[in-house]
Structures are given as structure tokens and as C-alpha cells.
């Protein structure tokens, strides 16, 4: 696959490092700032290209016409949206993924044909959550075309789930507990998995079940 990453900040840099490890992929990373591009180039080499990834003429030069996947991960939502739309409508790139910095833009991005979105707010919220224990359900990712989203829930003292096997929990329909991150690391849970205080749960749930799932896993919300 030929993959183009637009945006060489922390997210783009991290992606480039990951993708570099995977064989059979050609990766180009596009960075607007000359100094940042130079810095990246000294680490990542030839794959770094200095230019404006939302500009059609420039994308043409990096061979966007033969790209299979484009990821727009700059800190600028306008650039990310326009880049994905250009990728789709001008270059017919099959799959586009955009980072959404302002979570209120999520619906617009999906409506305008971006295939997947990654919300930076969700990731940052996960960091903030460590210092704000009352925030116990963190949306990590919206799943396009559905009411489902991926959330991160921290199990707290007083949670009805503590000490009980998951199979005994009467979750609402369409709730999937995908991963439990505890002292022993991340595990895919089974029916007999028992949650402990401090565990983090990654789950796929319908949005309308947020409140009830939070109550069942994190415990009752504190009234302040």
C-alpha cells in the first residue's frame, strides 16, 4: 500500500514510526513547516516531504493519484477536512482518515465523506481523566454510520461491577466489553473476568447507553 500522512506533528510522527515497521508499505509524510520537515527528515529520511498537503498541485507531485490511504492528522480541522475531500474527490483515494481537533466537527466530517475520524479531544480527555477521577467515561472514537462509539471507563470504588464476574452483569443491548486494562496489563475479558477498582475498561457501546454503562462499571456519579 502507498500511504500518505499529512501533518508531521506528534500524531503524524508516531504514525510514520509505526508504519515504517510494517513491510510492503510505502509511506510519505507531508509537513507544512520547513523547519519541522527538516527535523523529521533527519530522523525518518526520504519519506518526509515539505509542502501543503491540502494543495492539489502539491499532492499531485507526491503521487496522490496512486495512494491507497490518506491520513490527515494536522492540528487544523479545516486542513484535515479539505485534505480528505481533495483526496477523495480529486484523486479518488479509497480510504481517508482525519483527526478531528474540535469534537463538534465530527458529524460534519463524516457527512462530507471522510471515512474515519479520530478525535484528539478523546485522547486528551483520557489524559485529563487521570487527574479528574469524577470523569469516568471517555469517548475515544466514533464509529461512522452508527450510534456506537468506543469509550474508556475507569472502575471506581463503589462500582457494582467490582468483585463480580462480567457474565453476571446485565448490560444493555449492543454493549461489548472489549479490553480490560488492569495491573496485569491489557486482556480481552471472558465471562469469568472480574473487574477491580482502578481497572480501565475499553468498550463499544451505543451512545444512549452511556449513563447506564457508566453507572454499572464506574459506579454511581458523585454529587458535588
Amino acid at each position, binding site marked *: 500500500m502507498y500511504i500518505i500522512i499529512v501533518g508531521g506533528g506528534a500524531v503524524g510522527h508516531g504514525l510514520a514510526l509505526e508504519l515504517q515497521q510494517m513491510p510492503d508499505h510505502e509511506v510519505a509524510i507531508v509537513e507544512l513547516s520547513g523547519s519541522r520537515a527538516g527535523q523529521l527528515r533527519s530522523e525518518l529520511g526520504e519519506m518526509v516531504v515539505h509542502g501543503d498537503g*491540502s494543495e492539489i498541485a502539491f499532492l499531485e507531485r507526491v503521487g496522490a493519484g496512486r495512494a491507497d490511504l490518506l491520513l490527515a492528522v494536522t492540528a487544523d480541522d*479545516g486542513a484535515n*477536512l*479539505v485534505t480528505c475531500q*481533495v483526496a477523495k474527490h*480529486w484523486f479518488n483515494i479509497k480510504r481517508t482518515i482525519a483527526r478531528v481537533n474540535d469534537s463538534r466537527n465530527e458529524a*460534519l466530517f463524516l457527512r*462530507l465523506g471522510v471515512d474515519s475520524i479520530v478525535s484528539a479531544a478523546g485522547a486528551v480527555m483520557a489524559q485529563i481523566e487521570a487527574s479528574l477521577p469524577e470523569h469516568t467515561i471517555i469517548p475515544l472514537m466514533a464509529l461512522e454510520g452508527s450510534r456506537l462509539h468506543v469509550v474508556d471507563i475507569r472502575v471506581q470504588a463503589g462500582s457494582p461491577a467490582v468483585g463480580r464476574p462480567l457474565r453476571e452483569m446485565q448490560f444493555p443491548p449492543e454493549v461489548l466489553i472489549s479490553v480490560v486494562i488492569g495491573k496485569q496489563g491489557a486482556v480481552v475479558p471472558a465471562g469469568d473476568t472480574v473487574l477491580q477498582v482502578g481497572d480501565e475498561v475499553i468498550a463499544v457501546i451505543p451512545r444512549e447507553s452511556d449513563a447506564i454503562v457508566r453507572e454499572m462499571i464506574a459506579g454511581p456519579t458523585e454529587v458535588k
Partner: protein
Amino acid sequence: MAGEVPGMRILIMGCGRVGAGLATQLANEGHDVTVLDTDAFAFRRLLPTFAGHRLVGSGTDDRSLVEARIAETDCFIALASGDNRNILASQKAKEIYGVKTVVTRVRDPLRSEMFGRLGLRTFSPTKVGVTLAHDAIFQGA
């Protein structure tokens, strides 16, 4: 299009030379004009007698758009400095808030053409500028 309808509610994003000039003209024609700019200093380009509203905020930010009463707006014109910001704000005005007439300045002629095809009313000052400069060279030749 028919001639202008007096009393339209118009929201202009960006109070640069073009934004301020257009706002002044539309207000003089009797329209209800609001100008949005992220920098209050940009409003110096409007005369003190300007009859419209000045609002500090970003045209890509939902909070500012709601404050500018975007849902009751007949016409949204994106004249900020960045093409991508103009395109984002315009698509938001059109798709999310249902604004009927959306006009977008896109400096890059190719992006202007592409988003024109996708349904925005775009114009490229770059393209117009090239034509004007070219014609001026051969004027009276």
C-alpha cells in the same frame, strides 16, 4: 439569480479589506449585516457609522456561529485569510445550519474549482487577478 432581496440577513466571516468593503456596501443597501472576525482590531476597517453588527469570533467555531445567529442567516460569505478555514466554515453553514446562499473565497484556483463542483459558490481572486493583470498589460496595445 434575481436581483438582490432587500433586508436579507447576511453573515460575513473575515473583516479584511474585502470583508469590510462588502459589509459596508451591503449595509448601505439595507441588509442586516453581521461581520465576524477573530481579531477585534480588524473592525477598524469599518466606518464608525457602519450600521451592521461586529462580532469577535471564529467562523469555524460553532459557538461563534450560533452567537452570530447562523440558523436565521440567509447568506454566509467566507472571506477569512485561509482557504481551508473558509471551506470548513462554508460547508458547516450549508450542511449543518442550512444556510441557503453560501459564498466562499478560495485563493487556490484548483481547490476553488473542486469545491465549486461539490456545490459551494466559490470564487478565486487568484484566477481573477491573473486575468486582470494579463489584460492590463495588453490594454490599448
